[in-house]
């Protein structure tokens, strides 16, 4: 990845920290004042989708925005349906926090998955490093796991 290039800035759209910020924005959307609420739009269209894709172990680079946005739209539809079936009135008080919570849940799940993956990979990696005498070209196994 080019450091400082626009690719890297776009890559930020699927950075876990930004996804977490997206979840927080969604949860806090009912209390955000005025124009600040517009910041929720990218969070709504990107965060839930990228979070689910991370959980499922799919590519989470900026190019996959073409999947992340439709997946976010899908999650909004499914969450709205779930709230309707639960007889909860749909509005910003219900939908924002639910979508934020779902995003946070997916992120937590993806971290848990990543940690399990790292634990199972580490002994093998150590053995490989020990055998070859050098690290795996400096590529972080965790990064590889999440961007698979």
């Amino acid at each position, binding site marked *: 990845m080019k450091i400082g290039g626009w690719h890297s800035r776009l890559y930020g759209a699927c950075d876990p920290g930004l996804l977490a910020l997206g979840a927080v924005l969604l949860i806090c959307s009912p209390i955000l004042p005025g124009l600040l609420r517009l910041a929720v739009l990218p969070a709504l269209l990107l965060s839930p989708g990228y979070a689910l894709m991370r959980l499922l172990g799919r590519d989470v680079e900026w190019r996959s925005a*073409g999947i992340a946005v439709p997946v976010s739209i899908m999650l909004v539809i499914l969450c709205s349906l779930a709230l309707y079936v639960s007889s909860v*009135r749909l509005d910003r008080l219900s939908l924002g926090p639910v979508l934020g919570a779902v995003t946070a849940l997916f992120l937590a799940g993806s971290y848990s998955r990543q940690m399990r993956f790292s634990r199972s990979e580490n002994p093998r990696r150590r053995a490989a490093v020990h055998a070859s005498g050098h690290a795996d070209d400096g590529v972080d196994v965790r990064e590889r796991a999440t961007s698979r």
Partner: protein
Amino acid sequence: MSGSRANLIAAALILAGAALVVWAYSIAPTSRIESYDPIFWAGMVLVYLTVTWRALSGRHVPLWLAFLGLFAVLPKFWMSPNGPIYFDETAHFALLREVISTGHLFQSTPLLPIGKFYPGMESVAAAIHWLTGLSPWESALVLVAVAHCLLPVQVYYIARALPVRERWAVVAAVVYAANPSFMYEDVQFAYETVAILLMFTIVRIYTEALAAERSGGRTWRASLSTTLLIALMCVACVVTHHLTSLTGIGLLLVSAVTIGPMSGLLDRKGGARRLFVRYTPPLMLAGCFTLWVVFVAPGTWPYLFPHVSQPVQQVLKLVGIGHGTSNPLRTLFGHSVAPEYERIAAIAAPVLISLALLFAGLRWLRRHRSQTVFLWSFALAAVYLVTLPLTLLGGGAAGAHRTWASTFLGVGVLPAAVATLFALDKRKPWLRHTAVTVGVASLVVLLVGNVTAGMPVDYRFPGPYQFGSDTLSVTPETLRLDGWVRTHLGTASGVVTDRYTALSLTAHAAAITPLQVPGLPIAAIWYNRRPPEPSLMFGLQRQGDDYLAVDLRDGLHHPTESPLFVPGEPYQVREKDMTRLARWPWLHLLYASPNYRLYKIDFNRYYLWYPFHAEDE
């Protein structure tokens, strides 16, 4: 030329193209189509070619394609920047308003009863409204823009996964953006706009999964997670639109039996996982759709069936087997005011596609039968061409039209098939240059011709008042009536009226306007020589339709595009049947303007009055 300089030139060309489009729309209301239509096309062609040039340069391809999708929203946006204007759009916006005001899904509108059971798009637009504070219409526009800008991107990635080389995948996306539905149909706030994005995403994930199977290295875990994602997307697609789900099932089935790696139809040598990856998605989409129709939306089948049965009956009648008295054939450009060059392009476009399919197909049969990459494209392009003659049938036009946004995917890949099968890349330079010139000219013909074939002129440009037009029948006088209704009767007031006044009252006054359905023959108020019967009035009273709005021009003109109430209605309302309303004592005049009358219906007085006047003419 350096990349940044080329991008600057491209930006300047795009700005010039956008300015031309806006200029065309600004002069359209007061000019003849011959003056603004060439300006419009100059702008559109300039932008299409510029985006193609930059995307073919190989950098930031998805961004350029997304920009093309976004730019294609511009004409529709200038058509109605402040609110819905088309029939479906008005109906869906009414549904959105209901969802927002009640906080519950599955709301209904008389304009589109089936829309109640497909609330996917409204739920997303309502979420945007609630979470961002944008107005309902702005939320709808944002959703449409986002969905539309991603369509060419999905086509590009689907083509890449087939696999098609990058430059031809770009061409596939640009050619797809010249389909008849792209510029005016799939930019409406209507359920197909969002559903088609969801369906293309399913197809993209699916074709990428098949590509991963081809390259090896897949695991069961990866396949299962992909299938889970597709399953969730299938549910969302089904909840959003019935017909797109159906065409999606067809698209996935065609993909399943044509996209490699294949070893026989059942792909037995591929192993259990490949069989699972190949056939689970179409089965899941079909299963979701069946369950939804059976348990949630049983009205879908009666709604869709006439779109199949009517063309079949009409074809049978044409070959002398069926019954019926009326001529089922429509006239090509019967009431169109499109310029001559647009009509020629509209006829030339399918001819070009047929020629491309014919040449590529024959070449494939003779020399490359082992290459199955383009079978998928051939199958879809053939379906597209087969549906074209159906538009000449009165009952087949709408159904055929709705499939084009899906089947044009195959047409998009045809240039790649022609270039690859004829090895154009390896030919002499003059032949390559000639091929590029022919390709550019073909793209322009496809763009102009398909838009002309896909949308009537009154759906594309603003203009002077035109009786019987969804878009041009709204005048300042109509808007004053809408304003009066909104101010004095409030929103959600039930107003019985004709189709065109109903559209305006629904869009601008948030009124509820019943259309003629079995059991509620409201057209009788306009067409019957005798007063409306108590069964009709009881039905109106039960629904809370307390008001009657009439447009006096209904008695002067005959609508050419859509009927005032119901297909097969009398040619025109009798003028004396319009004036008799003023004499009926159970109608109290509330509002009058040169062309409109709004009455309050006094149902109790009607029930007393009717027995003595049932035979009046």
